[in-house]
């Protein structure tokens, strides 16, 4: 293609966007709204997933030892598992004291030493509290810890942990599914809108064909226009969404201590650029899909 042609096609796309003021506005508006919804859902999903993961992070495994177990050996074995992230020893005395305290009993009372034989045998075993690097691995680590010699019983807040893990997992999966569906929905709205803008100018396309313009010569300005619309729509969506998100993040951080929204200027910037990129891609794809019907071999 000659330079003048390239130049012509570019300026055509821009001119069309400008001279079609109202149609361009409509396309940008629909694109912006669609991307706004998509972006909000993505932000929401990311944060919910993040929170569920955080909660699961707090989950631990309690490993009770047999009466005569070698705690050092068990600890070594525990550390041997690469999934393990932390191990903390809790002696039987310590365990009793914690238990007693938790129900309001005086721990001293239970430990009165009456000589050779204690008044009351401490029924609690020595134990380890184990954390995993990834809460995901808790069930597996627990299972494997059960195999270690000297381990009497392995416990973890099975129900809670599994709930949280399932939740986080569910959010991740449904997030991807919903995200993809939303992306499709967004693309549909944008492409339908652009199709309508093209439909509104089908007569012009027809005239261009009559004068001998090739299909690509007709398409390129429309695609450029679609890209410009998408770019503008994405920028508008980002310009609306990001400040609102910052504000919400700030507000939530101050008023609901237990909810902690992700916030990092760089991440938000990337997110905003992502929206614009989506706009551009969807705009280009939308024009191509829209042109399909009106620009084809006569």
């Amino acid at each position, binding site marked *: 293609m000659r330079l003048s042609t390239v130049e012509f096609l570019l300026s055509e796309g821009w001119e069309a966007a400008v001279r079609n003021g109202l149609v361009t506005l409509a396309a940008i508006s629909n694109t912006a709204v669609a991307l706004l919804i998509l972006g909000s859902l993505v932000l929401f999903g990311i944060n919910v997933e993040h929170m569920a993961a955080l909660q699961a992070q707090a989950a631990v495994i309690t490993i009770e030892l047999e009466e005569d177990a070698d705690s050092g050996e068990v600890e070594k074995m525990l550390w041997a598992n690469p999934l393990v992230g932390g191990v903390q020893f809790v002696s039987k005395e310590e365990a009793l004291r914690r238990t007693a305290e938790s129900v309001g009993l005086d721990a001293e009372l239970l430990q009165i030493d009456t000589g050779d034989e204690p008044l009351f045998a401490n029924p609690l075993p020595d134990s380890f509290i184990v954390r995993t690097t990834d809460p995901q691995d808790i069930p597996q680590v627990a299972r494997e810890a059960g195999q270690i010699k000297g381990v009497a019983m392995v416990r973890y807040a099975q129900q809670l942990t599994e709930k949280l893990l399932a939740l986080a997992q569910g959010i991740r999966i449904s997030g991807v599914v919903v995200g993809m569906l939303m992306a499709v929905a967004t693309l549909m709205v944008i492409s339908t809108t652009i199709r309508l803008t093209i439909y509104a100018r089908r007569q012009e396309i*027809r005239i261009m064909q009559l004068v001998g313009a090739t299909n690509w010569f007709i398409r390129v300005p429309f695609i450029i226009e679609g890209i410009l619309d998408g770019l503008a729509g994405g920028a508008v969506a980002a310009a609306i969404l990001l400040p609102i998100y910052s504000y919400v993040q700030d507000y939530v951080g101050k008023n609901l201590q237990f909810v902690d929204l992700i916030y990092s200027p760089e991440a938000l910037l990337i997110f905003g650029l992502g929206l614009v990129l989506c706009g551009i891609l969807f705009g280009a794809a939308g024009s191509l899909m829209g042109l399909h019907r009106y620009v084809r071999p*006569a």
Partner: protein
Amino acid sequence: MIDLQSVGVRYPDGTEALRDIDLHIERDGFAFITGPSGAGKSTLLGLVYRNIVPTAGKVVVDGQDVAKLHPGRVPFLRRKVGVVFQEFQLLPRKTVWENVGFALDVVGAGRREKYHKVPISLELVGLAEKADAFPHQLSAGQRQRVSIARALVNGPPILLADEPTGNLDPDTSWEIVQLLLNINQQNTTMIVATHDREVVDRTNCRVVQLLQGYVVRDAKEGGKYDAP
């Protein structure tokens, strides 16, 4: 240059617009097409720039059978054929200048070529001072002349004009017809559909008369609007 062999056109709704047409226009030839409203003049011209594909027979333009043309090649046929459309077909969001320039844009002409040729063409049809107007800011006759300027601008080897003077007063009409005849002298094959009796009778050219889709008369030279 243009060769119609037993051509028939039947529109999807069943209308028989052309029936069994045999017509040959030699290179650099000229012909008026006359006939009452609905006779098939526009349909005949449409065959040449492949706006319409014949449902019977064969249309050969510049050695090519248009029906066999690959769809992707159609634009290249159309660049060889300048058309003055009966209903103008101007791009509403382009100025007069840009509308005329568009015929050069499609062939990838450069800026210099455009700045050279477009004003000449507008001058020829007497619209130089309306160059920056948009089509909706023109009178119908002015729009028609823009359509003429666009058809001329890149000097196509074939020129079709469909009622090019339908919205022009007699004086302007005559000027336009003389312009067309001049261009025909400069190696351009030309067909002009018209119902302007005055114009046809004054020029003494070949006249092909259509009636209900048939060629009812083909006066080779010195033809008159109506049968003698």
